[in-house]
C-alpha cells in the first residue's frame, strides 16, 4: 500500500484538514499524531476537519473523529467538524451514534468565525 498522508494546512492560528480519502486505522492514527504535533509546534487554537467529501460516516469513522477531537482538546485547542451532509447527519441520529467530542459548524467559514469569537 502507498504511504498516504493527509495534508494539514495552517490558516492564521487554525489548522485545517480536508478528508478526501478513505480513512483506515494507520492513516487515522498518523493524522491524529501529526495534528497533535502541529498544534504543539504552531500553538494553534483550533483544528477544523472538513468532511464534506465524506459520503458515509459509520460508527468507525465517528470513533476516529471523536478520538481526534479528544486529543486536540487535550492539547488545549478546539476541534470543529465542518461539512457534514444532511443525509449523513440524519443517519448518525438514527444510529444513536454521538459525535460528542467535537464541535460542528456548517461550513469552514462559519467554523473560522466561531473560533475567532472564542479568541477575542
Amino acid at each position, binding site marked *: 500500500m502507498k504511504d498516504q498522508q493527509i495534508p494539514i494546512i495552517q490558516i492564521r492560528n487554525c489548522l485545517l484538514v480536508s478528508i*478526501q*480519502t*478513505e480513512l*483506515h*486505522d494507520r492513516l487515522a492514527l498518523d493524522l491524529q499524531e501529526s495534528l497533535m504535533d502541529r498544534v504543539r509546534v504552531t500553538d494553534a487554537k483550533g483544528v477544523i476537519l472538513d468532511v464534506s*467529501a*465524506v*459520503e*458515509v*460516516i*459509520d*460508527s*468507525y469513522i*465517528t*470513533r476516529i473523529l471523536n478520538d481526534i477531537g479528544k486529543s486536540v482538546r487535550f492539547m488545549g485547542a478546539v476541534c470543529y467538524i465542518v461539512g457534514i*451532509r*444532511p*443525509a*449523513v447527519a*440524519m*443517519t448518525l441520529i*438514527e*444510529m*444513536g*451514534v454521538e459525535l460528542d467530542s467535537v464541535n460542528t459548524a456548517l461550513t469552514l467559514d462559519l467554523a473560522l468565525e466561531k473560533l475567532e469569537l472564542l479568541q477575542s
Partner: protein
Amino acid sequence: MRTVENEIGAILSGTISAITQRSIFNRLGPLATRPVSQLSSADRLAVMAELENSVRLFARRNSADLIASCARVLGTDGAAGAAGGPAAGAAGAGAPGGGPATTSAKKLPIEQEKDIATARLEAWSEAVRIGLSKFTSVKVATAVSELARNIVFYAGRGSVELRTVRDEKGASGLQIIASDQGPGIGGPKLEEIWAGTYKSQRGMGKGLVAVKKLVDEFQLETAPGKGTTVTCLFRGER
C-alpha cells in the same frame, strides 16, 4: 501512457469527490489501471456501462455531459446510448406469485479494507436504482459499511449479499445478508453489545446496534466458532 483512471479521473474531478472516484475505479477492477489505448472494444463497453451508472448516480450536475466526455475518451460514443437504455429499466422484472420475491441478487466478497468501500458503493447504487429515497440510500450504504467492517475486523473474510425484493404491494426493498465463518459472538458478549456497554478495540462497539436501528427488519444468527450471519431489510417506499 494514460490509463483509464487518469483519463476518466480528469473528467470527473471537480464534480465527483476523490473518495467516490476511488470506489468507482475499484469497481472497474484491473481495467482501471490499463492504458486506454490497449483496451479491447468489449473492455471499453464494460468500462462505459459501469461509468454510466456511477456517474448518473453521483454527479450532482451535468451527468449527461460527463458521460458523453467519458464515451468520447473511450471511443464508445456510438454504443454508449444503447447500453444505457435497457440497464435503466432492469429493476422492473415482475415477481411471480404473492409475497416478497427476489428479483435480483449480487454477492460481494469482503476480504480487505478496500472491499468495504466497494460494498458500500455497490449497496448505494443498488438502493438508488430500485427507487429508495436519497436519505434511505445513505442509510443503506452506512449499514453495509458497518456490516462489511465487522467482517474485515473480526472475521477476516466473508461476504455481503444484496438482494432486491418485492413486497405484495409491488414496492422494491433491499435485503442485505452479511455472513462470515469467523469466531462468532458468544452469549455474554452479545448481551453487552445489545446493552450498549461493549467496547471494541478498533471501533465504537456500536456497529451492530447502529445497523439494527437503521433497518426495518433485523436478524442475527451467531454462535462461538460457527460464524455470524446478519440478515436485514430496507422496505420499499411506495
